[in-house]
């Protein structure tokens, strides 16, 4: 591995190559299925950008960016908060459930920040239990966050079917937030201001991670927890803060998505933003600003792809095939790169090292 960090161009190339590869492989699959890949991809670009597509794509970008940031902040510390669905949906259920009540009780300018904060607080609270277990007892957070996620999803659905259910309709869903109580549009567009919140959060997180003592403590912890403890960094504190931040960002994504885009929540609704955006977070090498173009790319893919799939008589799930292919190519290039010692990894170097040491021990046995 090089002594100096890889150049901007190399980083850019490494992010782009898996994307291009997956699109090419996707095209081959489409051709084998008897579809015209050029028509499909053309449709994606057309419906995702042309006419009103870009406004839809950018609106979708708001929650996706916040989800990406929530993942970046934990992954930086080599901690795994994989409970994004539970933290997101529980936040969404509470925001959607109490939204109509609050917007009737307090003025509009106060109601929306309150709701977004509520979402963030709920998300953070749901991340707290795994965080404390990890900090106090070293419990594997992958398992605890996943399990807590199932519980969170279950409770969210119970709430929507229970106390929050709108008695006026037959389908299990919450009352709908009146359109005038929702997040306003950016003037001259049909994109809600949640996008601005998300972009601002990305900028703030970028500064916090690269230019503050917090970011350095997190990086040192992520790279070598023992060195962090030796250096007097309160490792338990780092874990808890980072999980709370991550959960809060997921919850904020929910708050913004409900108050900006949907206005209500239906039972069993799960947009799975976290899983979809996860590969892109690694492509961006856990850089909050670097993630933005990739999130934009996925937003177009998701917005345009939904319509394009219908036009080509494909399942919407085909989009997930492309996402999965990105992961496959990313891993392959990663392997190839490390074999040749050619380039830095998508993964943080310390994580890569840990994985390599792990595999070497396997070999030794």
């Amino acid at each position, binding site marked *: 591995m090089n002594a*100096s960090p890889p150049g901007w161009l190399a980083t850019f190339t490494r992010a782009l190559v898996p994307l291009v590869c997956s699109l090419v492989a996707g095209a081959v699959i489409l051709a084998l299925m008897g579809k015209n890949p050029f028509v499909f991809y053309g449709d994606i670009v057309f419906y995702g950008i042309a006419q009103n597509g870009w406004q839809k794509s950018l609106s979708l970008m708001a929650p996706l960016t916040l989800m990406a940031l929530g993942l970046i902040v934990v992954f930086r510390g080599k901690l795994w908060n994989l409970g994004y669905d539970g933290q997101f949906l529980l936040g969404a259920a509470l925001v959607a459930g109490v939204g109509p009540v609050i917007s009737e009780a307090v003025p509009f300018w106060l109601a929306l920040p309150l709701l977004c904060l509520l979402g963030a607080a709920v998300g953070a609270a749901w991340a707290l239990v795994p965080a404390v277990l990890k900090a106090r007892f*070293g419990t594997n957070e992958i398992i605890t966050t996943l399990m807590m996620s199932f519980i969170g999803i279950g409770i969210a659905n119970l709430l929507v079917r229970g106390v929050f259910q709108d008695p006026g309709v037959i389908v299990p869903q919450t009352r709908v937030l009146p359109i005038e109580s929702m997040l306003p549009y950016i003037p001259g567009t049909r994109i809600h201001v949640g996008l601005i919140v998300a972009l601002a959060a990305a900028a703030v997180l970028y500064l916090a991670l690269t230019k503050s*003592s*917090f970011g350095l*403590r997190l990086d*040192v912890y992520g*790279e070598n927890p023992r*060195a962090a403890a030796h*250096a*007097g960094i309160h490792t338990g504190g780092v874990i808890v803060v980072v999980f709370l931040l991550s959960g809060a960002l997921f919850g904020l994504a929910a708050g913004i998505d409900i108050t900006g885009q949907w206005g209500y929540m239906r039972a069993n609704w799960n947009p799975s933003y976290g899983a979809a955006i996860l590969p892109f977070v690694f492509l961006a090498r856990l850089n909050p600003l670097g993630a933005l173009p990739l999130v934009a790319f996925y937003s177009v893919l998701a917005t345009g792809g939904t319509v394009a799939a219908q036009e080509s008589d494909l399942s919407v799930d085909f989009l997930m095939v492309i996402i999965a292919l990105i992961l496959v190519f990313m891993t392959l290039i990663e392997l190839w790169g490390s074999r040749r010692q050619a380039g830095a990894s998508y993964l943080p170097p310390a994580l890569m090292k840990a994985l390599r040491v792990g595999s070497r021990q396997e070999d030794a046995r």
Partner: protein
Amino acid sequence: MTWKPTACAGDSLGFMPENQPVLRLVGITKAFPGIVANDEVSLDVMSGSIHCLLGENGAGKSTLISILSGMQRPDRGTIELRGRAETISSPSAAIGMGIGVVYQHSTLVPALTILENLMLGNSGKLLQDRTGALRRFEELSSLLGIDLDPRMRASALGVGQQQQVEIAKALWKDSRILILDEPTSLLPPSLVDALLASILNLASRGISVILVTHKLDEALSVADAVTVLRRGRVALSLSADKLLEKGVVSAEERILGAMFGERESVEPETSAEPKASEPKASEPKASEPKSSEATRAGRQETTRRVEQTARIVLEVRDVETAPPGSGRMAHGDAPLAGISLTIRSGELLGISGIEGNGQKTLAEVIAGQRAISSGSILHNGSEISDSGVAMRQADGVRYVTDDRLGEGIAGDQSVAINLVLKKIGRPPMWRRGITRKAEIERGARVLVREHDIRTPSIDARAATLSGGNIQKLLLARELDGMPSVVVFNKPTYGLDHNTVLRVRREMSEFVAAGGAAILISSDLGELAQMSQRIHVMDAGRIVGTVDGAETAPDEIVARIGAIIAGVHAAGGHAAGFRATGDQS
């Protein structure tokens, strides 16, 4: 030995003549970047004998074992098995040649039964031969005195039973050479005796045993031959009879002398060696004699008796810690069992003892990395046992760790960041949490220059530095800003000669300037040279003290050896087993 077995006469390999080595290593050399792990190691293992391999951690025992087990190949040297030169190319090749290894930590699969674990060694066959395996298990059970249900899960086994199964696993394929890597390190004392008895029994059946350990009493109680490794070389190789001629205590002293290196490293005289042929032309030649002089000057400076009126900087009173395993930062070191010590300004206090007797725990307790369960720690008269690492660091209590790569540095961060690693968030490098890169870099440049850290730049990743430069980085970090007390844990371990001199000089200068230092070292010569007093630790206690100012260096080494040997002779089972072995 007179009791040499007759039992093996009938077995398949029993044609070995009695006095021929079953395994002979000649000139085994294995180098890793920056360190020669095995340097011309030669040894003979006789058929049906117990050969003890002793040495401190890092002496090269593990490398030798991994060469014998086929995990690594030597750079040079030959391995002869029963008189034939062999290449052990893989672990399975080693098993095929009849070499079985029992590692320190369990390699059993917890979810599988005992029998299934043993049958893992039968890989390569498509069908499982359960009846055959059961028969083999019965055989080994009677040989090893195992009384276990083969259908029991490995996870249900106690440590002693686990080890029995491990030995059975190593012998599964009819191994005639059994290597045990520190088999007693995880066993309670009651089970150690049983294990040693079982090893003696195996030897009596013609199996050659290589017992790796750093516990002298165990080694002497069963060994037929003893080889001591130090810094990759054979420091001593003798038959047990010769070694024990003058009694157990004298034998232990000889072994300790070989393990820790008496005499040789007392004075760093070796700097007079001609070094002109060395490729490192960039090294300033003039610095060598100068640094050596400085060390001598440092010795004169430090060995002068510390005035009893000097200020007490650090006081440790009756400190105990919880047993290992109960904390998240657990390691193998012994807990403290009631330690008291004081250090005055201008004093260097040496801590000696066989590794794993609480030295590291003591260092971590003082640094604040490990909680104490009772007692108190006073720094300049005020209680600090409740304050964390960061607060003690800021107060001037510092710790130069022995685990330089594992906890000393964050390897992927830059040299500059690693130099401020213990000050993250503190002014002037940070203001209200905002990083001030220029301040960090300015400080880093000064420290890199002052401490002669050889790095391409202050932005280079710390992990790319050589071991010596990483240690200089750690010293620069811990000595920055005139601390009041510094714990140096094996500060010269594994370093090249010049860096060793430099580290010692920096310690001397720190003490001469009125600092208080604790030097934990396994190099008795170094302790004798540097310290005013040396405490000897055993099982988490201080068991003796040698006054460095009033004792000649050679004598210091002997007295420390005598203290350690004395503790073992008094409380151990050193004498007992020997007799049993002779009778069988």
